[in-house]
């Protein structure tokens, strides 16, 4: 977690929604996917993850259900709602334009 986690933290919701695009998942699996994708350089704290789940659930972007207990562990699964998909698309567009602007603003001729 050496990279600028503060910069990433603002995109926690987008990151979680992105993970759920591929299907329902639970907290640990989502966090593991994030860790794998970033080659162990980034993962969410449990507290951050659950605050985000609660927030996304409240606004209707995701919904939760308790998983099947037969698999041994009792897990709370999250699924993305149509509203969640819309929100994700919007956040993605927001990010693209923000990235573009930030690049223009902070990259100088010398650093190129």
């Amino acid at each position, binding site marked *: 977690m050496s990279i600028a986690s503060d910069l990433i933290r603002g995109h926690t919701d987008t990151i979680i929604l992105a993970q759920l695009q591929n299907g329902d998942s*639970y*907290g*640990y699996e989502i*966090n*593991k996917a994030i860790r794998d994708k970033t080659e162990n350089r980034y*993962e969410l*704290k*449990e*507290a*951050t993850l*659950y*605050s985000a789940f*609660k927030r996304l659930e409240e606004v209707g972007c995701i919904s939760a259900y*308790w998983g099947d207990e037969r698999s041994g*562990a*009792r*897990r*709370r699964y999250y699924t993305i709602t149509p509203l969640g998909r819309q929100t994700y698309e919007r956040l993605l567009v927001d990010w693209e334009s923000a990235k573009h602007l930030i690049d223009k603003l902070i990259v100088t001729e010398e650093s190129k």
Partner: protein
Amino acid sequence: MNNRLREYIDNLFATAPSNMKAVEVKEEILQNLTDKYNDLIAEGKSEDVAFNIAVASIGDVSDLIRELQGLPQQYSKMAEDNEKQKQRTALLTAIAIGFYIMSPVPVIMMQNEIGVVFLFVFIAIATGILVFNGITKSKSQPVPDTMVEEFKEWRERNSGKNQLQKAITSAIWAVGVVIYFLVSFSTGAWYITWVIFLIIAAVEGIVKAVFDMSK
């Protein structure tokens, strides 16, 4: 090991309100930590190292706890409902008692059978009000908004049944008392009519048995 993690989580959430939402969040986090811990052990980490890494990944839960404390907004509505219900019960009970107290007045005033009829009408109205209040009163206590759904349903079903049983029982007694007075006044056989109360008790017992069996 699971216990050590559980203990840690319990301590961490010691200041959180003990509602169902908090229990769920705790269970969810504990499950994830356990997964993480097991993975770390599988990777060859020692128990202590795995525990420390797992615990370190929790982060700052103070916001989460604050959210949990902010939750009980649904309760305040329920408390309001309860308050309303209390006032209604008080009013209806007062009216019913008023009728009870007033019921002998027609007998004293008229000194004839019509007075007795009014006495019963008054008693019937008063008892009716009390029974009505008992039946329509919902015994809902503030229940945290999420608990395992089945448990909630089970609980609702059960309390519904209990309420019905209570309503029937009170109706039996009210009707029984009216029958007792009607029979006693019309036959004058006061020396034997008290048997009616035994019958009422027996009927109540049967109703209770039927409910217990269907539970």
